[in-house]
């Protein structure tokens, strides 16, 4: 995180503040997803024991989530890079477009997290 360029200043207008906040948020989403990639490997190992069909299906779901997670990380990273041209925005329309895109990525992130959480809960219920 480039704290100097991303700090909120007195001369920032509402759009600038929104963009800076969205950048912070995006960075946290990506670091959370990177953590999930590591977590999935551990959960996979926990499911290795003989727990029958349920465990087998959970492992398949975990693999599917791992792929989805990887795709989401790369999408968010691409989106993060595309935000570099934010400073070149000259009108409100351009600013709003970026804010709108951010909301689309937000819903994608939340949807993935909810799905992943449901699988994790199933797994915890199985092993406890």
């Amino acid at each position: 995180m480039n704290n100097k360029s991303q700090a909120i200043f007195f001369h920032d207008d509402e759009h600038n503040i929104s963009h800076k906040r969205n950048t912070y948020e995006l960075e946290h989403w990506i670091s959370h997803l990177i953590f999930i990639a590591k977590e999935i490997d551990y959960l996979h190992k926990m499911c290795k024991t003989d727990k029958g069909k349920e465990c087998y299906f959970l492992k398949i779901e975990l693999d599917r989530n791992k792929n989805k997670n990887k795709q989401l990380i790369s999408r968010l990273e691409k989106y993060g890079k595309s935000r570099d041209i934010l400073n070149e925005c000259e009108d409100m329309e351009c600013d709003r477009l970026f804010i709108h895109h951010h909301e689309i990525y937000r819903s994608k992130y939340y949807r993935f997290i909810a799905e992943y959480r449901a699988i994790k809960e199933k797994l915890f219920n199985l092993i406890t």
Partner: protein
Amino acid sequence: MLLNSNLEKINETKSFFIKKDLLELQHWLTKLEENHQELDYVQVIHQQIIQDTETAYSLQQERRKNTLALASLCKYEQQLKKVLEYSYEVYDLDLAHQHEKKRVEFINTDKSFFAFKISFYKKLSKYNIR
């Protein structure tokens, strides 16, 4: 007349920003509540499998951090709601900075939770689960 319409515009922008902050704050609170529920699972797994003092201690520490962060964010939520209801000033830099401070608080708590879970999983992977 002109002054009134300017004041209305200022209040509208301010309400919009505060509502946006409140929405984001709601997500943070939900995430911390989910972390809390996950800690319950971790505690059960710990009692059944690992059962060591060090993990029990870090589990307690993590739960404490999570509870404190939740309390602080709940307090902040009340403050924001009050500002939204009673104050008629612009959305100033102080409010924006306060929100960023709370963001840092949330992110630090969440990151500490990640680190705790990784060390827990590392320990757990040394055991054969049932």
